[in-house]
């Protein structure tokens, strides 16, 4: 196909998809109207179908042509009033339009698709009635002329469509979406909440429409139903916007020339003017470019009438969907990304929110449920609200379930507010419950919705009243690339705080500090309009030296005063009297006032005052104390390097005007780092989230560990199943005999080791109370000296076997926020007492002539390497596979060499049960012993394992037993 053809085809696809997007909503409106046929609407759909047919015929896309033709026939009958549209007919048409959409999206293969089902259905309707009189050509010519004048009227008569039921104040004055056809006479309007009706584009568009038939058809109708692009690789921009961009680019070039000239001439005065000009041009350019990315949220909203219709039909609900604010514009990437979460929420509302009609009637509600989907601007963000008048979410039941699932404790649940309980549904791990939907009303995948929104920098809140309904509000940023920030300074460095988090700036003059700032326990709080606001010092959270900015000398100085309240000057009673009334919330005024006083007062006042940035993150609000407040600036976020990823206090960095870097603060993580005990309890939400995370981690491959310490700084873990028992002893119980440490234990001497004898870790803490962890190895007991706190827990953490690996330490994992080293007790004992293992079978070298090859199947790198290490150490050869599928492949290739299989149970693709079943049912492999390596030791698992044919079960990392059994099978296998 030539390039030219390609372009035409592309044009056909885009245009057809636009038509189809319109058709869907129009068909719904036709269904709503029933016998009261709206000619204009039917005409429009008819023409859309017709132009798809025409285009497809031209392109040789016969299947599409055929289907469009059949649909057109039926529409023709409706138009000529030979057929009254009922839901069944509309259904067939909708299905046909869905099919058309799929065909067009996959245009290359469309000619091979079987559409007979649709054709039959359509033709049955068509043939059941009289033959429509009109031909397609007639429809075409007649309509393009009459279309534009009618469109306004049509739009206002349309509201019976479910897309815009009664409460919608003004559905039609939609700004033209960027994706619309080119001849828009003016640039895109700013995303203003309530744009006034815009009559002017109407005639202009009709006149300049590029293609006679299809364009007006698409354009003249309600503009709300604009295209939604499925394959959004390109974006349509109005020519006027492009013109504006061109203009600005020209301006920029001119300004650059001016700037260069100024630099050469060294004229400082004109430099200022040039600077201003460049400033202006850049910000306009930025705005215009952002506009090209903005799209109306209607692109997403428009598909919901259909979703609601189909779903409510299926579920036997009666639902009105009201959509408000389709004109609200958002960045293209955000629009695309909210599609799925929104669909999910809408489906939830229909499925679980709105009750069946009979239930509603019994409760005295209108049998028709109402779902309102609303978008509007608030505080520089876009808010999307989905509210229903359904049965609401019962927070108490959610709490019960959360307790049952171990996500929260009973105490936590008691302390929660109703809102917090409702929001439990967002906890990860909550949704995995099978029955949640039945009990609570909602819940499937709500955490996924939240995660998706979090990734966009958005937030989600749920408000619900049982029996009355639920409102879910989503807040989204307008764009992701450039964000306005408040610049502050602390410790001589600048930091940026995103404006979305900023509530207000507060300055407490020195004289008021003592009065306003109070201490509650360790925390400092400030009284702000009757509420207590917790305070965090940025320098403390970041762990840098406390400083303050001396306005007189313009220096940042070290602040030695410990409490904020101590900041008040002690030296000048005079200053205290005069300054009492002074309180400002702006540094400039403060300084001016201060400047008006005597030199002495000035010295004390401004530098002793507190600069507080009041920030909010979700429900939590706190004050961040900084040295200085600077301007607000628009900044570009740049990511930090990987070495700095662990610093959780920053969201990124930005480059300031002077070329230096400022860090962008992540205020929610700062609060967490400060251990902020919030006054309104939002901190509990964090705790809950942590708890939920633990719950999630439980569903992964688990390992029971005994956690202990050897020195206060380091935490260790050892697989619980290796531990015989734990004894509490006193240091004086330890005897130093013959260069060895021993203690009396069960009538004998128990040799003692400590980890630091083998591994380079901190020495054993010098304290009186010690713990001895007793292991039984190589037929002997050995005690490992340790200190508390000691804890046994199931851990699913990823084990890192590289970073901290050293003799005696097999790897590390993050457990409860601490890096925990997993000790290898065999290695420790082997290092300290090498002779113990000499005559023990596990260290026996396999010296038979035949080589023993073991296939180790394990998805976790760590465990695989560990087991491989054990095996190779003992002289066996090892083949590896990451999952069952791969294992079978390896078996196939090496069937003659492999002596036995060691397999994990929990694995992706094919698990250990299935693998073993396959092995045991294959005559080629049946003879191979299969040993399960597992962390699952539940009875039913063992039983199931036996059933599928596992020869033996071993706990991962229980080296001794595993080796013994491997050895047994190896010798047996070789002997045989």
């Amino acid at each position, binding site marked *: 196909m030539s390039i030219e053809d390609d372009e035409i085809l592309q044009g056909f696809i885009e245009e057809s998809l636009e038509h189809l997007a319109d058709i869907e909503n129009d068909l719904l409106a036709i269904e709503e109207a029933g016998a009261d046929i709206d000619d204009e609407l039917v005409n429009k759909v008819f023409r859309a179908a017709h132009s798809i047919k025409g285009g497809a015929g031209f392109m040789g896309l016969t299947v599409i042509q055929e289907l469009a033709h059949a649909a057109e026939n039926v529409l023709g009958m409706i138009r000529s009033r030979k057929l009254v549209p009922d839901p069944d007919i509309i259904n067939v048409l909708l299905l046909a339009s869905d099919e058309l959409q799929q065909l067009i999206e996959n245009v290359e293969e469309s000619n091979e698709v079987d559409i007979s089902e649709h054709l039959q259905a359509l033709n049955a309707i068509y043939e059941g009635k009289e033959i429509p009189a009109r031909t397609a050509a007639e429809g075409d010519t007649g309509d393009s002329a009459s279309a534009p004048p009618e469109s306004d009227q049509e739009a206002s008569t349309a509201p019976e469509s479910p897309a815009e039921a009664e409460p919608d104040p003004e559905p039609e004055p939609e700004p033209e979406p960027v994706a619309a056809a080119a001849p828009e006479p003016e640039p895109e309007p700013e995303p203003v909440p309530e744009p006034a009706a815009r009559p002017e584009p109407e005639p202009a568009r009709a006149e300049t429409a590029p293609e006679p038939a299809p364009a007006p058809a698409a354009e003249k109708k309600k503009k709300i139903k604009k295209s939604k692009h499925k394959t959004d690789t390109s974006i349509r921009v109005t020519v006027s916007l492009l013109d504006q961009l061109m203009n600005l680019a020209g301006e920029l070039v001119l300004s650059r020339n001016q700037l260069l000239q100024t630099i050469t001439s060294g004229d400082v005065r004109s430099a200022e003017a040039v600077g201003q000009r460049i400033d202006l041009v850049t910000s306009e350019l930025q705005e215009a470019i952002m506009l090209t990315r903005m799209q109306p949220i209607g692109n997403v909203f428009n598909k919901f009438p259909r979703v609601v219709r189909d779903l409510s039909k299926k579920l036997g609900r009666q639902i009105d969907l009201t959509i408000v604010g389709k004109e609200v514009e958002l960045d293209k990437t955000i629009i695309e990304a909210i599609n799925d979460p929104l669909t999910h929420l809408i489906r939830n509302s229909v499925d679980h929110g709105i009750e069946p009609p009979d239930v509603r009637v019994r409760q005295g509600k209108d049998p028709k449920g109402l779902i309102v989907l609303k978008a509007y601007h608030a505080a520089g963000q876009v808010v999307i609200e989905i509210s229903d008048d359904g049965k609401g979410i019962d927070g108490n039941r959610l709490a019960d379930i959360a307790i049952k699932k171990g996500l929260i404790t009973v105490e936590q649940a008691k302390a929660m507010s109703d809102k917090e309980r409702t929001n439990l549904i967002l906890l990860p791990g909550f949704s995995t419950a099978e029955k949640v939907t039945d009990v609570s009303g909602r819940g499937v995948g709500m955490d996924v919705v939240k995660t998706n929104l979090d990734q966009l920098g958005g937030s989600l809140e749920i408000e619900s009243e049982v029996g009355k309904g639920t409102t879910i509000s989503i807040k989204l940023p307008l764009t992701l690339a450039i964000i306005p920030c408040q610049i502050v300074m602390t410790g001589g460095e600048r930091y940026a705080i995103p404006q979305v988090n900023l509530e207000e700036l507060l300055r407490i003059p020195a004289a008021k500090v003592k009065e306003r700032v109070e201490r509650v326990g360790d925390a400092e709080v400030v009284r702000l309009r009757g509420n207590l606001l917790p305070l965090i010092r940025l320098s403390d959270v970041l762990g840098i030296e406390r400083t303050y900015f001396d306005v007189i000398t313009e220096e940042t100085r070290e602040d030695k005063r410990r409490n904020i309240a101590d900041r008040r000057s002690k030296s000048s009673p005079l200053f205290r009297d005069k300054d009492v009334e002074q309180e400002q919330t702006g540094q400039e005024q403060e300084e001016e006032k201060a400047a008006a006083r005597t030199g002495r007062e000035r010295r004390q006042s401004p530098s002793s005052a507190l600069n507080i940035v009041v920030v909010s993150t979700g429900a939590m609000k706190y004050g961040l104390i900084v040295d200085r407040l600077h301007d607000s600036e628009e900044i570009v976020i740049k990511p930090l390097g990987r070495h700095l990823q662990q610093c959780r206090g920053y969201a990124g*960095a930005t480059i300031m005007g002077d070329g230096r870097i400022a860090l962008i603060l992540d205020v929610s993580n700062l609060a967490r780092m400060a251990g902020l005990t919030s006054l309104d309890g939002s901190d509990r939400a964090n705790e809950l989230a942590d708890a939920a995370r633990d719950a999630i981690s439980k569903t992964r491959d688990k390992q029971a560990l005994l956690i202990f310490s050897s020195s206060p700084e380091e935490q260790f873990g050892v697989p619980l199943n290796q531990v015989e028992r734990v004894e509490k002893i006193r240091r004086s119980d330890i005897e130093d005999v013959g260069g060895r440490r021993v203690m009396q234990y069960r009538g004998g001497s128990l040799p003692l080791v400590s980890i630091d004898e083998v591994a380079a870790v901190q020495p054993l803490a010098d304290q009186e109370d010690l713990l001895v962890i007793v292991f039984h190895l190589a037929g002997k007991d050995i005690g490992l000296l340790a200190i508390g706190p000691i804890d046994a827990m199931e851990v699913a953490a990823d084990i890192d076997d590289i970073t901290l690996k050293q003799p005696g330490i097999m790897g590390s994992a993050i457990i409860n926020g601490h890096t925990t080293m997993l000790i290898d007790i065999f290695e420790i004992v082997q290092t300290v007492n090498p002779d113990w293992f000499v005559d023990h079978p596990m260290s026996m070298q396999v010296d038979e002539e035949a080589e023993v090859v073991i296939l180790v199947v394990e998805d976790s790198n760590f465990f695989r390497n560990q087991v491989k290490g054990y095996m190779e150490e003992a002289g066996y050869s090892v083949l590896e596979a990451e999952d069952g599928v791969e294992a079978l492949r390896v078996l196939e290739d090496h069937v003659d060499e492999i002596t036995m299989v060691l397999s994990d149970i929990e694995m992706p693709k094919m698990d250990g049960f299935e693998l073993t079943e396959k092995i045991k049912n294959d005559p080629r492999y049946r003879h191979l012993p299969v040993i399960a390596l597992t962390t699952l030791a539940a009875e039913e698992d063992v039983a199931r394992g036996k059933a599928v044919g596992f020869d033996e079960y071993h706990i991962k990392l229980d080296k001794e037993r595993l080796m013994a059994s491997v050895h047994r099978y190896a010798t047996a296998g070789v002997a045989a």
Partner: protein
Amino acid sequence: MENEEKLADKSIIELATFYVGDALCGMDILKVQEINKLMEMTVVPQAPDYVKGILNLRGQIVTIIDLGRKLGLDETALGDDPRNIIVNAPGEHIGLLVRQISDVVMADLEKVEPAPANMSGIQGSYFLGVYKTENRLIGILDAEQVLRMETDSRTGPAAGGSVA
């Protein structure tokens, strides 16, 4: 000309050499993107101690690692004649702060000897080997090892949030 001939031989590489503490270290010059003396760094509180700060390198944010600290020596004093050696790391550039830079030395890889366990107080694991010139000993740094993170980034619940 002579150099070019040498370079044609595959076992010969050029080493950019520099001082870390008292140790003379070298790195394959092809790994080095540039060497600069920009010292206008922004300190990142709470960063690992071996991170000196971040730097604006023509609009890109570059993490500067104090090579002295990283290798377990004292902090590199900014008083001498410090330089940042900017190297390419996966997905970003990273700067290595060194006390002083020295010559570019041609080294024959075949004559590189295994690194001793400890060289001028630096852990042997950071070296690929040592190269002897007439009068000096150059430790050839393993760039990947040096750029590796000391602790995994999977610390704390912040990263854990993505589990869901």
